């Protein structure tokens, strides 16, 4: 067991009614890394984060964050955790300066320089009311409020959600600039795969409430592979292959995305008697999408009617 784990869960589960939103989550996150938490909408990312921060009671299982039970986080531990919520909600009647003043009263390690730096980066005027800010500006303000206390652990719930490319770039730059310190740990959920590729050391993927991936980014990249099989006519039906993520069927061609492509998988594919079998390079984004997308076989063979121009 990693003694340096900042976040550790064991069998963490949360039901909403009879439906599990997060099921049996076992996770250990080492200190000083950037950890990307991925999954489709509704896969349980936000629920997990809310449980980790003691904002939602787990149905069963347990967890610790910075060594403390997530069910009873004391104020001194909360002071060491910065949390950026996904919708960047703040008190609409406050202005930017008041937000900073309000937040600074609670944090003894409040760094006004960082706060000013971040809001300056986003071009926010101190007198601007929160309710008049754009979504991107609000995200910048939230980021400033989250970073200024200089937290040891940053938990960012889809920080780039709904931001335009410029605001998005600003946010990521701020994140990278201000958090790339060896003692700081970042746990963030995102749908922006480019961000993940750019900043993450580790990734975890939740698939329909269940954790399927938890490894380094490099390992994930190496584990997901695509193979193309060519056939003289229509490709045969795809047999049951271990680790198959997706199969794309086209005229005389079968393209399969698999996890841990190895001996057993290769053997099963060769049994289909293809005329050619070759490994195709796959981008990280494609690997993510095949992982997060619908599993099963997809066909690109068009019927005659559909093929007419």
């Amino acid at each position, binding site marked *: 067991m990693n003694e340096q784990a900042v976040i550790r869960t064991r069998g963490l589960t949360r039901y909403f009614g009879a439906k599990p939103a997060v099921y049996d989550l076992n996770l250990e996150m080492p200190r000083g890394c950037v950890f990307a938490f991925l999954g489709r909408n509704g896969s349980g990312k936000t629920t997990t984060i809310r449980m980790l921060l003691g904002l939602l009671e787990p149905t069963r299982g347990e967890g610790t964050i910075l060594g403390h039970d997530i069910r009873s986080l004391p*104020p001194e531990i909360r002071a060491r*955790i910065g949390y950026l919520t996904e919708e960047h909600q703040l008190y609409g009647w406050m202005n930017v300066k008041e937000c900073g003043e309000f937040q600074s009263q609670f944090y003894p390690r409040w760094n006004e320089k960082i706060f000013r730096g971040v809001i300056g980066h986003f071009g926010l005027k101190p007198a601007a009311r929160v309710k008049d800010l754009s979504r991107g500006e609000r995200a910048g303000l939230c980021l400033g409020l989250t970073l200024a206390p200089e937290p040891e652990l940053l938990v960012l719930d889809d920080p780039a959600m709904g931001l335009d490319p410029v605001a998005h770039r600003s946010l990521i730059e701020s994140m990278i600039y201000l958090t790339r310190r060896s003692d700081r740990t970042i746990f963030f959920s995102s749908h922006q795969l480019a961000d993940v590729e750019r900043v993450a050391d580790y990734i975890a993927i939740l698939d329909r409430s269940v954790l399927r991936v938890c490894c380094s*980014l490099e390992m994930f990249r190496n584990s997901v592979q695509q193979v193309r099989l060519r056939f003289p006519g229509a490709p045969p039906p795809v047999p049951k292959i271990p680790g198959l993520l997706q199969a794309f069927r086209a005229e005389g061609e079968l393209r399969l995305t698999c996890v841990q492509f190895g001996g057993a998988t290769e053997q099963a594919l060769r049994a289909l008697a293809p005329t050619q079998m070759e490994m195709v390079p796959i981008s990280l984004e494609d690997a993510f999408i095949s992982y997060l997308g619908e599993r099963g076989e997809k066909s690109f063979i068009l019927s005659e009617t559909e093929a007419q121009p």
Partner: protein
Amino acid sequence: MKTLILKELRENVKLALLGFGILTLMLALNAHSYSTDLKNLGAISDSQQEYLQKYLPWQPLVSSGFLTLTGFFCAIFGAVLGWFQIHNDRHRDLWAFLIHRPITRTGIFLGKTIAGLMLYVLATGLPLAGFVTWVLVPGHVAAPFEWAMLWPLAMLFLSGTLYYFAGMLTGLRQARWYASRALGLGVALFVSLTFKSEPHLWQALIFILIGGFILATAVWGGFHSHGFYRGQPAAGKPALTGALMPGCGLVLALATILLVESLLRNSDSYRWSDYQMTKDGIIYKVTHGTGDQSDIVDLAGQPLIDAKTGRMMGTADFNRRLCTRVQINPDFGDRAPRGRWFDRDCYRFTFWRATPDTLWYYWGRYGRLVAYDIGTRRFIGSLGPDGFAQNVSGDGNRFGDGRNNYAVASRRIINTTQAVYELDPDHHTVKSIFTITNAPNETIGGIGEVSLNGYDWDYTIVVTRDYIRLLTPDGNVVWRFAYKPNHPDYGQISVAFLDSRNQFALWLTPSGHTQEKTGWKLPMQVTWLDREQGVLRSTDLPVLSRNRREFGREQKLMSLSISPALMVMLPWFNAETRLKDIPWVLVRYSLAAALVCLPVGWWLGRRYHFTVGAQMGWTAFHLAFGIPGLLTFLSVQEWPARESCPNCKKLRVVDRELCEHCGAGFAPPEKTGIEIFAPLNVTDART
């Protein structure tokens, strides 16, 4: 916490200012309406005096209109303020922004509560304080004032804080609006319904404090658990349960009342009988039901036939034939003070009479009539047995003994323990019309002014321990009847005035207290009297009133919906509580309902695998609180889903680590072959 208080103040100050404005406006209208009423008084006829006595707010601070307005406003504003304070932060992300900061949940609760109560005081306390100040400034209100009159207002103001906490709880609770979300308001409602009825002020205060403590603790727990029952601190769970139970009880009681009303509306339980006397001195037994027509029979049981129509006489015709009856409940100072503290503090004085330029009140504290000038609205002087005085206490001479504020029996007369006086407010004089002589131990316990046509003063009834006397207005005795053997058992006296000017009927009715002691066996006594011939005849009438220890079907049905514990506790809310006041018959019904709830609660506890301690605790709860308790149990708990155990195939709750049936753990997620797991080490990742 200071920052949080300031934030809350800033966030909700608009609501508070709105409340402040509305209440100030309403109080200003109240003051204006009082001034207008006084200006419009003008000449007041005798027939208007009774109307004035009943409907005009002589002292605006204790007028029912003002107190109702204050009570409603404090309750509504408190609930809205509490709810808004939570609602403002209740968006999921905003709640996280509030909660996830280095401050304890208790700190957040206190920050919100302190700010909320400050705003409550601003919105309600300031306008009320302003109104009290206006009343206190001489020349504004032409009526007596005592500091104790502020207690009803203070208690209503204080009870508004219960609604404040109930509003917060409603905002916090994770429950459906149509189900149990707003049930916390039940505590505040229950306290509001009961605290006014208490015999003593301290009891009312304790009620409010207990209600406030329960609600505040439930809200405090709600901050720890984000509004859920699960995750509450140890004190929060019973507090939340206690906060929801009165609401469940009230909802259930309302439902039961509706059921009883619809099912048993026409039953015999809704019929009652009394005796009536016509102007010719004949007694009839009248049985009232739910319709307009009553059954009227004579004492032999023969229906009363209308001679003109030959059919049974209608109620309206019968009522026209009834004689005038004047009732007196004498009090010789040997009865413990009864009644509600609320009424005692509201009626520290009573309006007596208005002359064209003066308002007269009987002020119990001084036992004297006090006069206020209508024009200047200032105190003029007081009237006691010794005559008029410029100050309020005279030389200490007083009419009443100070035990009650209702010594004024009529418009023209008033009594001390030894004499009856005729009052002349126009000339500021009093004249003795009757004095007890040669019987130093005899005291006057009650007097009655009789007006047969509603205007003129025809007779005076004077009741002492030894005699009941009927006097003419100038004090001459018409007849005298011995009261001694019947006192104190027959605590209700009424004199009927018959067609013949010289004939009367004296009714002596046992008090309910005596009837309870004697098993409802004492008959009513009626004696016919003649001015010249004395006693003509007398008769005993069998008891008609239902023994209060006998209960009808609807009461038994109602008791099923009331907690046994509440049923046992209810009589203890009265001043003189005795074990035998507890309605044990109804308690038995309530207990029977509780016994039915026991297996249901036990079964649910087993189904969701409660701990032994929790099972025992809830069992005791169900036994004590019956059906309302079971409803509370169902409302307060978050019932986890159940799913089939892969090992034993039985349904198991999802919030336990191990199956309650076979002890197996939950199956790990099924492997699909796409899993990629590797131990994480930051050094590896960085390199």
